[in-house]
């Protein structure tokens, strides 16, 4: 039972994502019926599961939600921006309720009530489609039966008296329906129990006996039902088979009009008992229930077909995936990591044995290496997930912060399908949430300031993800006022972070906001001022092996850009020797390697050196001295310099004793197995079985930079 519940919650998560993305599409003006249907299905599935597990609070809310969506679906309620906004907030509340149900707690009853009331208000007297053209009668607002049980809880207004209406139900089961022990006959009987029913069967697809698949599905039905039941109740009959059939439910006045139209277009073929089977006895027409489509029903064919095929694809993709415990995948990844190490060890043994490069053992090993790499890539791909769920959570953050600060902000998302390792995704949520909060709270100006600055009243926040040379780059860009550099500088001075007379570039001032203990908010608001500064964001991103940088244009806005590794499990590294120790430097940080010449190395104050490369001076850092492998600085000309770039874009030359080679290494966390060491990001196991440390380039580069700022050295020309 617990396992089934687990699955239900997993599915809930998926449905919630589906729901939100559908609603966002609707907010963007997508009025495709299939979008509304997808949204409805998502809510409907959650309701089904919630009911089965007895999550009453959840079911009650979902019911009102579903009823509202049903009105939109049947074009009785227009999806105006105000309505979609309410629906989006309802989806937030729904997510809270699902979480409450999963964790056994309870959601904020006040918030639930507010939204439930708003939804009920929509049900009661919201703007309706067709009020002015009179094509949809007021009696058609049939929300009454499903709402009865909720009156006491959500104070739904007095329902209108039920009126009977005619429905045209078109139902064509697939073979899957029968295979799952469902039976058309039972469904039709159940439908008949709702009211007066007349059934027409389309037997035109029945083949001759020799071609018949006895367990196939060839029949389709058109049912005219006169009932006091609502459309939702009619649909409920097919609740458990909706994925295994084509189903449409329309009010008959729509159907009648269409039939009349059809009759005027073509001679009607009367059903004849002895007609040859090959000839269709009945023309089936796809109907779009929106009144606007009356004029051109034939145009609706492709749309309906598209919708059906989309439905088909949906169910196919469900079949094509399996749910696997993350632990199992991680175990597999770990094992593959071991395989890589083992393969490297084997290679080393072989090369130690002095076999020729052309020997079959070496060639076989090369093939094994290629294969290992392929396996590793495939295994990593299993963990790759689109960033969409995280991005979508951000749209909620934007809504919440915008409403708290009274600003109008529009979130634009780009590249949500970009894939990245699941661990990266999980650990991205917090820093990203914080950055989004910051952008809305501090970045985007108040409406009156925006208007005064000649910008649109609504602020824009852009969240994008792209793959760039083996890394994923995520950007948060706002079109706000940009960083107030004078103020940032003033705060940094007042907090003693920089000396008052420090001479900093714009870029360096911008980067001050990442310093620990820096907060620009003059008053602590309840949004950004939670004691969490951008330094925490930066550390979170760095912990992921990522880099964060900022660019800001006064009056035009700021862009935070994060570059993250696609996976946290392996790394392409340069293996080097420093002070007799083997170290690995991430290849992504290295720009080039060079042999320092005596004339290009210059002393700069006590102990600081710069190297001249391509007409610029770059700080020269002796890695051995920083890591305390040796006390005395070593002569640069006897060493190799690696030109690296840190996350802030600062360049630096690292002095190492020698380069051993380039290799893919499996990252083993130092924190989990030992503890944090400054200047060291992680460890790995080399081919000979020895542990090698992986250098934290940013930490190495950042240290002298901080020293330089405090000591107010003239900034080295870069």
């Amino acid at each position: 039972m617990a396992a089934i519940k687990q699955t239900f919650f997993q599915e809930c998560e998926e449905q919630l994502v589906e729901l939100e993305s559908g609603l966002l599409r609707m907010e963007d003006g997508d009025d495709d019926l299939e979008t509304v249907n997808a949204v409805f299905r998502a809510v409907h599935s959650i309701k089904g599961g919630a009911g089965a597990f007895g999550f009453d609070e959840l079911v009650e809310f979902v019911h009102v939600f579903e009823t509202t969506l049903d009105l939109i679906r049947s074009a009785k309620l227009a999806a105006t921006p105000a309505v979609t906004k309410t629906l989006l907030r309802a989806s937030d509340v729904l997510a809270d309720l699902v979480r409450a149900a999963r964790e056994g707690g309870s959601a904020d009853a006040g918030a639930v009530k507010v939204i439930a009331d708003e939804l009920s208000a929509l049900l009661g007297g919201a703007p309706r489609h067709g009020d002015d053209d009179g094509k949809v009668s007021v009696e058609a607002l049939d929300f009454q039966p499903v709402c009865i049980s909720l009156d006491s809880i959500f104070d739904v207004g007095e329902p209108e008296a039920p009126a009977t209406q005619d429905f045209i139900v078109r139902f064509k089961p697939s073979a899957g329906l029968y295979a799952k022990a469902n039976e058309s006959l039972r469904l039709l009987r159940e439908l008949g129990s709702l009211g007066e029913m007349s059934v027409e069967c389309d037997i035109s697809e029945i083949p001759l006996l020799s071609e018949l698949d006895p367990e196939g599905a060839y029949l389709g039905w058109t049912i005219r039902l006169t009932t006091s039941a609502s459309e939702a109740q009619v649909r409920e009959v097919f609740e458990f088979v909706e994925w295994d059939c084509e189903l449409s439910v329309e009010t008959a006045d729509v159907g009648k009009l269409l039939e009349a139209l059809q009759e005027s277009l073509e001679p009607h073929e009367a059903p004849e008992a002895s007609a040859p089977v090959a000839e269709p006895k009945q023309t089936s027409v796809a109907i779009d229930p929106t009144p606007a489509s009356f004029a051109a029903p034939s145009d609706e064919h492709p749309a309906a077909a598209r919708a059906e095929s989309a439905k088909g694809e949906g169910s196919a993709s469900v079949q094509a995936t399996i749910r696997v415990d993350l632990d199992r995948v991680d175990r597999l990844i770990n094992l593959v990591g071991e395989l890589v190490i083992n393969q490297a060890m084997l290679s080393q043994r072989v090369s130690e044995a002095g076999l020729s490069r052309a020997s079959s053992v070496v060639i076989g090993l090369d093939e094994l290496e290629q294969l290992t790499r392929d396996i590793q890539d495939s295994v990593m791909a299993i963990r790759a997930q689109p960033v969409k769920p995280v991005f979508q959570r951000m749209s909620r953050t934007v809504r919440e912060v915008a409403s708290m600060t009274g600003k109008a902000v529009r979130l634009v998302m780009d590249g949500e399908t970009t894939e990245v390792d699941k661990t990266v995704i999980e650990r991205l949520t917090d820093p990203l949430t914080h950055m989004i909060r910051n952008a809305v709270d501090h970045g985007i100006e108040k409406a009156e300031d925006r208007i005064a600055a000649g910008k649109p009243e609504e602020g824009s926040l852009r969240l994008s993800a792209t793959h760039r040379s083996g890394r994923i780059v995520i950007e948060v860009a706002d079109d706000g006022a940009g960083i107030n550099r004078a103020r940032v500088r003033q705060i940094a001075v007042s907090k003693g972070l920089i000396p008052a007379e420090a001479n900093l570039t714009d870029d360096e001032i911008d980067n001050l906001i990442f310093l620990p203990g820096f907060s620009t908010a003059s008053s602590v608001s309840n949004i950004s001022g939670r004691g969490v500064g951008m330094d925490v964001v930066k550390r979170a991103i760095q912990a992921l092996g990522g880099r964060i940088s900022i660019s800001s244009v006064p009056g035009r806005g700021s862009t935070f850009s994060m570059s993250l590794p696609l996976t946290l499990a392996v790394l392409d590294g340069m293996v080097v020797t420093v002070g007799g120790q083997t170290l690995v430097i991430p290849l992504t940080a290295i720009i080039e390697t060079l042999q320092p010449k005596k004339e290009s190395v210059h002393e700069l104050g006590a102990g600081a050196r710069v190297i001249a490369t391509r007409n610029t001076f770059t700080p020269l850092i002796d890695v051995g001295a920083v890591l305390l492998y040796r006390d005395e600085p070593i002569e640069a000309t006897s060493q190799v310099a690696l030109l690296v770039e840190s996350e802030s874009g600062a360049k630096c030359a690292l002095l190492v004793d020698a380069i051993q080679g380039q290799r893919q290494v499996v990252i083993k966390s130092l924190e989990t197995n030992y503890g944090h060491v400054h200047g060291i990001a992680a460890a790995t196991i080399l081919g000979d079985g020895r542990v090698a440390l992986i250098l934290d380039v940013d930490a190495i580069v950042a240290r002298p930079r901080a020293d330089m700022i405090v000591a107010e050295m003239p900034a080295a020309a870069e």
Partner: protein
Amino acid sequence: MVTVSLPEILDIRAASPLATELLQARGNPLTIEASSVAKVGAQCIQVLLSAHATWTADGLPLNVAHPSEPLLDALETLGIPFTDISEQESTK
């Protein structure tokens, strides 16, 4: 003239055997004895519809004799006229 008797239960599991049995009778005038049918599903109705179409195409008579109440009831619910599965009207 060949006679095939329908079993009591005509659910999804009965569809394949029924189709096979009817196919074996193809080429002969056929009477389907339907008095004992107690339970019937849409897929067996499909087989009967197909059989009728096949015999019609072959120009041979196919009649369903003594249809039971459950069978007639099922046909009515499904909106299928009796003459879609039998050349002659129901002879109870």
